[in-house]
């Protein structure tokens, strides 16, 4: 599986994402600098965590308007599996590829810890290696992970199986404890927790691996 990691000036989980992708897929990902938007064809695009443009104005707002994201949006619309973690999720909502928005955590504090979450849809290209309803542990590290969408959108997301993961307990005020959502077509996933930080036992567990393995299963 040939993957790409998009690197913005303030990305800081780009290396972690690349390490995870290489360990799990066996192939070094292409690191795409935000100004080099005309990058090679890949099977999978990852938007890593970080503070892409300092998170000034709104998290992910500036990156969402960058040249490289125009290209990412185009490829995602063509069906390329696209995955955003943390700041990557914020960017995906800011581009409109994913519905909703991520607001400041309800308690106003940055939160970094392992959280339990449930797999809400185990049929998607990102989650098929998990069992439906499985409880997994993945760390979060964010200040703005409080997922918001209006009730109508939330009903639709839940009805159509677009909610991939939910927190087992409320950690940031997210509506309906949503931790990760997909687009209607199912080829774009955004999530606040960091699966790339949970890929081997010295780091505290390996529940994050199956997310990458799911995509590999799908792409064959």
């Amino acid at each position, binding site marked *: 599986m040939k993957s790409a990691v998009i690197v913005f000036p303030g990305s800081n989980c780009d290396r972690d994402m690349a390490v995870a992708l290489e360990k799990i897929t066996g192939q070094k990902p292409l690191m795409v600098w935000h100004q080099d938007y005309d990058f090679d064809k890949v099977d999978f695009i990852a938007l890593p965590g970080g503070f892409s443009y300092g998170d000034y104005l*709104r998290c992910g707002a500036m990156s969402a308007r960058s040249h490289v994201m125009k290209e990412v949006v185009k490829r995602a619309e063509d069906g390329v599996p696209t995955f955003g973690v943390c700041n990557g999720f914020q960017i995906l909502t800011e581009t409109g590829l994913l519905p909703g928005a991520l607001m400041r955590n309800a308690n106003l504090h940055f939160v970094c810890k392992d959280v339990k979450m449930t797999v809400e849809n185990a049929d998607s290209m990102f989650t098929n290696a998990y069992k439906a309803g499985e409880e997994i542990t993945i760390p979060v590290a964010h200040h703005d992970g409080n997922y918001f969408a209006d009730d109508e959108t939330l009903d639709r997301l839940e009805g159509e199986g677009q909610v991939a993961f939910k927190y087992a307990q409320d950690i940031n*005020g997210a509506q309906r404890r949503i931790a990760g959502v997909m687009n209607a077509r199912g080829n774009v996933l955004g999530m606040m927790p960091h699966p790339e930080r949970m890929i081997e036992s010295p780091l505290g567990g390996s529940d994050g691996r199956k997310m990458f393995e799911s995509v590999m299963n799908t792409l064959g």
Partner: protein
Amino acid sequence: MKARIFVTLKNGVLDPQGKAIEHALSNMGFEGVDEARQGKFIELELSETDRAKAEANVDEMCRKLLANTVIENYSIELE
């Protein structure tokens, strides 16, 4: 020309920062604050002299970048 842009959270969107302000004010003994909402204030210096054009321009900036219309409203003042 100067453009002043106020970005506020839409009604119905929970505003934890506003809530914190409200709570702090009441703890400090300020009474009669029924609600606090926190937003952003952005000031732009524009070279445009035509008011209508400037307004249209800034409106587009707001829609495309300065506000996230999923959760935020904005208003523009020109001077």
